[in-house]
């Protein structure tokens, strides 16, 4: 199979999906696995078999198992042994995978969170040092990298490699109370979607005029809250829904938020069906919304803010 075949397969299969969020993400996983296999074969024909064990892992919306029809790529590689040969080999593989994903309509990541970038493609030793370094550096960007890395799961390769990195994060959280406050502040910029008079607030930039950014305004307060609580409760799982599942054991009213979150994912797919491929998938036109949809969106937003406030309270009180 070639990348182009997968691209075709992708457009065929994805069209069929209606509003089943889980099925859609399973299909994404299968497609991406096939793409990685082709990439591995391609690099193998060029440079031989992989010189060491490795893990190719997903981050971002793919990592959280909440991709919509179109998503960009966020991924990295962890390989076993640190040497020049391995570094060159896996960067080459990272580039090949990025290229393959891009051919198959998974857009390149603007922030370069991709295995083709040496920052996200390292040996396990280097990764350990990098993660510890990020935590020690304690800058906005380095902690953002920790949050990005935390929403991760292995798609192809050694699943325990990633666990080692999450263990480092958890150990540091045990030792240093302050880090969780810093992680909270790192995502503390909640973009308001509802105005003083209860109206929906459209984006102000030229591209988004008259639209709501569904990801930033509706989804992120949930995703960020649940990630923070996952840090706190030492949950390894990356998907927001499975994190919710675990959190219900610790926090009673999580169930209610989980339901709303599930509904948001469905609604997003519902809106995205109306879009053309070139449209920004995260922007929904306010004009096109029915008054019931508007009402529902407002409730979703309000609950998201409430959840974030609640999370803030939990973290600040108990550290």
């Amino acid at each position, binding site marked *: 199979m070639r990348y182009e075949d997968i691209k075709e397969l992708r457009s065929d299969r994805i069209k069929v999906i209606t509003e089943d969020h889980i099925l859609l993400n399973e299909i994404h996983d299968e497609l991406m696995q096939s793409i990685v296999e082709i990439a591995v074969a391609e690099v193998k024909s060029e440079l031989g078999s992989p010189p060491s064990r490795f893990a190719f892992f997903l981050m971002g*919306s793919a990592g*959280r198992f909440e991709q919509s029809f179109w998503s960009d790529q966020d991924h990295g590689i962890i390989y076993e042994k640190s040497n020049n040969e391995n570094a060159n080999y896996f960067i080459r593989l990272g580039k090949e995978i990025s290229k393959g994903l891009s051919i198959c309509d998974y857009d390149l990541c603007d*922030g370069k969170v991709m295995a083709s970038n040496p920052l996200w493609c390292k040996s396990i030793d280097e990764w350990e040092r990098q993660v510890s370094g990020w935590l020690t550096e304690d800058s906005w960007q380095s902690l953002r990298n920790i949050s990005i890395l935390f*929403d991760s799961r292995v798609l192809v390769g050694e699943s325990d490699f990633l666990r080692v990195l999450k263990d480092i994060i958890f150990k540091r959280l045990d030792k240093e109370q302050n880090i969780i406050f810093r992680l909270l*502040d790192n995502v503390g910029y909640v973009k308001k979607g509802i105005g003083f008079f209860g109206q929906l607030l459209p984006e102000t930039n030229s591209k988004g005029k008259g639209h709501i950014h569904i990801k930033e305004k509706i989804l992120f307060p949930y995703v960020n809250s649940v990630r923070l609580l996952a840090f706190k409760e030492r949950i390894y799982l990356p998907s927001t829904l499975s994190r919710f599942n675990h959190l219900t054991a610790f926090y009673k009213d999580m169930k209610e938020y989980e339901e709303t979150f599930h509904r948001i994912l469905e609604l997003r797919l519902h809106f995205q069906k109306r879009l053309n491929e070139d449209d920004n998938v995260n922007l929904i036109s306010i004009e096109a919304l029915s008054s019931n949809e508007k009402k529902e969106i407002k409730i979703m937003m309000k609950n998201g803010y409430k959840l974030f406030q609640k999370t*803030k309270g939990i973290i600040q009180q108990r550290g």
Partner: protein
Amino acid sequence: MDPIYLMNNVFIIVCFTLVLLMQGGFILLEAGSTRMKNAGHIAGKTIFTVGVASIVFWAVGYGFIYGEGNAFIGLSDFFFGDFTSEVDGLAGSTDFMFQLAFAAIALTIAFGGFAERAKLTAYVVFAIAFSAIVYPVVAHWIWGDGWLADLGKQDFAGSTVVHLTGAMAALAATIILKPRIGKFNKDGSPNDLAGHNQVYTALGVLVLWVGWFGFNAGSTLGVDGAFFGYVALNTQLAAAAGAIAAMFIVWALSGKADIPTTLNGALAGLVAITASCAFVAPWAAVVIGVIGGLIVYASMKFFEKMQIDDPIFALSVHGIAGIWGTISTGFFATPELAAMNGGEAGLFYGGGLTQLGVQTIGVVSSGLFAFVLSFIILKVMVTIMGGIRVSEEEELIGLDMAEHGSYGYPENMPTEENKAPGA
């Protein structure tokens, strides 16, 4: 109608506009001294908070200062609006306007401590609290019928009332807000978060310098006797001496004639002479300005060493120079001028330690009061508002975008915002 009465009123209204225009000086000074991503915010919030200060001053501020009350606070003349009244030889409303402009200046100075990281809502709430309580109480003590006025405290145009009060609020704010991201390294060493436009800063200083003639000369409250010319003379000399002294000291100690320090020297000279302009000889004004220029540099270094972030140097320029200016009359007040404008002669004119003592009590009590009350207000705000500082991300993208939705310099800023975690 008495032509002198009319002239006085015309003069003071002109001085009011000069003092109001000093806000333009602050806009340029603050915007120039901070980074590009906050320029629109820092300029725009000044206009907005002058609005808040004006309404609050009209409603309660003026009454708390000049109303009938006790030694601590005035308690009448709220919602000022009597067109028949006469105060200090001026129409009441003329006097009111002049006083209002001073209150707004004190507030803008206080906001120097908020720069580049406070939430917009924090500006709103603190503008109300400061204009309603902090400033009026100190102003009442010294300029109203307060206990420091009874002691004979000399503060002609407000080194203490306006500048020190503002600076103490700025100090409380900057301590509570903590330093801007990147100002200090983990080992405590400071970084220079350079302002984005020295030309703005210099123009800001010039606008302030010009406005200061309304501030100081206008504080004669009339044209009778034309004493304002003398006050203006002292003001000019001190500002000039401050600029020269500051440039000299920074050049002598660092080898470079740093521009922001020089500009702060001019301002320190102006702040220092504000209390003393009507009490001292011109040679003393030069000395007061020189010392102002020297201590402002020392103070800038001191606060940096203490790891207190003072983005617009409000603590040094208005605080330390304000203290020096107030105390300076205790040394330099001449017997003739003290007899004319209140209080006693200074130490160097055989007045002994009396006036120096009064000035010191005034500085300590007013400074402490303004600091403690501002600190309490801000702490309460932190609790109620869930913090008064923007999130780290907002601080990094700049308050222009985070709080106002557009950049002051749109062409120079990225159009795409920062990447969210794993977006």
